[in-house]
């Protein structure tokens, strides 16, 4: 009995506050607004019995999704979110891999400190870390002051409120997610493999390409998805660092909801975003399972 309770309490909590809300989003995405506020049409009338359910189901339609498909704003926002997330993931990999590699090659006694130094920014507020770049990248920001002061440029660069600032923001805030799994897979590597490769005539670069890189593959895949998946739906970074030309679906959803107050369309945007994310999430979970099996 008590055992049942231990299973039931967290289960019911997640059903009530995670799954049921999704069903509601799905339902509202298929509904029509009645004066932009609830109640929506159709409403489920349980007292009318079977006819009530049938009327309810026949009232649902795909109108909001058809609207998403015809309005260029939405599919452009989806595509541009995917592109921004992909580019940022690639940059994060190029920046993060050398850091993870150096950490794994560092002296054993240094590793816990280095690990803590990489994790610490993750605990500092996400919002503050994004905000800190606003002062750096602005027209009169520290970066432009530095570059003009040194004499590299004479006119300030426009970085804030462009996609470049968004890339920087995403790479900066998600970098620990890229470094940690790669470090985990490199740290477990047997270094005598590299010596064997070099004994067998590999150059250092060939040994890296043929031995180290394939062995760190699970870490690379995990890191890439940990950056890519949340970056697609990102809201804070494009709205603080991006400009009017930055189209990201998280921002579109937010504005659809808070500014336009069109809840059915916002729900439809959320459902399509979820459908886009399902494939990368499944690939990520498969990779995680394999990684755990390799560890044990």
């Amino acid at each position, binding site marked *: 009995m008590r055992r049942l309770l231990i299973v039931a309490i967290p289960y019911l909590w997640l059903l009530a506050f995670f799954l049921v809300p999704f069903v509601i989003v799905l339902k509202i995405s298929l509904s029509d607004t009645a004066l932009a506020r609830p109640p929506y049409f159709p409403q489920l009338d349980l007292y009318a019995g079977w006819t009530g359910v049938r009327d309810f189901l026949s009232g649902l339609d795909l109108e909001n999704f058809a609207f998403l498909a015809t309005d260029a704003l939405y599919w452009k926002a989806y595509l541009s979110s995917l592109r921004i997330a992909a580019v940022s993931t690639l940059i994060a990999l190029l920046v993060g891999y050398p*850091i993870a590699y150096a950490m794994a090659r560092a002296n054993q006694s240094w590793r816990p400190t280095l690990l803590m130094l990489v994790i610490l920014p993750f605990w500092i507020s996400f919002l503050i870390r994004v905000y800190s770049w606003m002062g750096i990248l602005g027209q*009169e920001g520290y970066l432009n002051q530095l570059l003009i002061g040194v004499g590299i440029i004479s006119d300030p660069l426009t970085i804030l409120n462009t996609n470049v600032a968004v890339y920087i923001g995403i790479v900066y805030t998600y970098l620990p997610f890229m470094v940690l799994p790669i470090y985990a897979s490199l740290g477990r590597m047997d270094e005598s493999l590299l010596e064997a490769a070099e004994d067998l005539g590999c150059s250092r670069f060939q040994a890296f390409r043929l031995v180290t890189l394939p062995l760190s593959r699970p870490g690379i895949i995990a890191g890439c998805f940990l950056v890519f*998946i949340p970056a697609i739906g990102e809201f804070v970074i494009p709205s603080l660092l991006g400009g009017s030309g930055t189209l990201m679906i*998280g921002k579109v959803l937010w504005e659809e909801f808070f500014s336009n107050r069109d809840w059915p369309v916002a729900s439809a945007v959320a459902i399509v975003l979820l459908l886009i994310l399902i494939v990368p999430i499944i690939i990520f979970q498969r990779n995680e399972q394999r990684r755990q099996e390799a560890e044990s």
Partner: protein
Amino acid sequence: MRRFGWFNATSLTLGLAFLYLPVVILVIYSFNASKLVTVWAGFSTKWYGELFRNEAFLDAAWVTLKVAFLSSTLATALGTMAAHVLVRAGRFPGRTLFSGVIYAPLVMPEVITGLSLLLLFIGIGLDRGVLTIVLAHTTFSMCYVSVVVSSRLVTFDRSLEEAALDLGCTPFDAFRLVTLPIIAPAVVSGWLLAFTLSLDDLVIASFTSGPSATTLPIKIFSSVRLGVSPEINALSTILIAIVSIGVIAASLASKRSAIRGQRDRRSAVRVP
């Protein structure tokens, strides 16, 4: 042992500089006397004074702390239970769904979680305020807690628990007296994680809060949208200081307990 070459040293230095420079610059300029944030005009702590006179910020900070404390405590209880179920319960109907809903919130975009919870609260007619933010934060942070706790439970030696049961403990006592003290560090770090996640959250709180309850991130976001401000720099510095001290203290404490554990094991071996 391979040599730690200049390439590794450079990439580590540059990488850590990239991670820390923005934060360091922010902290330095929070002591800037000038209202123009990017022009240095001498050392001053006046923005900190302004901050503590700003009622709106203090109110928001109070709401945020309340929400973070309540939601992280609830999330720790629920997340520990969920971890126990994931690691120990074996097969039961709906297990796949259960592990799915545990891991899904970790990768779910916040805008979707926020929107769906808001529609739920409106659907059941719950007024938006502190309660709804607590419910929302508990839901997503319990999943993080359960991941942290279950990774500790996996490596836990079950025979200790079985021994307690053999010696006449009820399952609950065995959990309370044997399992809980051993997994306590993971439970504590789960609580800390849930607490910081709640302190930090802007998007889900914006969806689920009402006019009566504004949290600090919502307040920061709305003032930062207009540009950089010295007051926000000061506020950020305080938050950064609290978090850094907390994390460093926690990691030193866990290091010391690891050393003590090693010593205990060694002396345990010596006793015949």
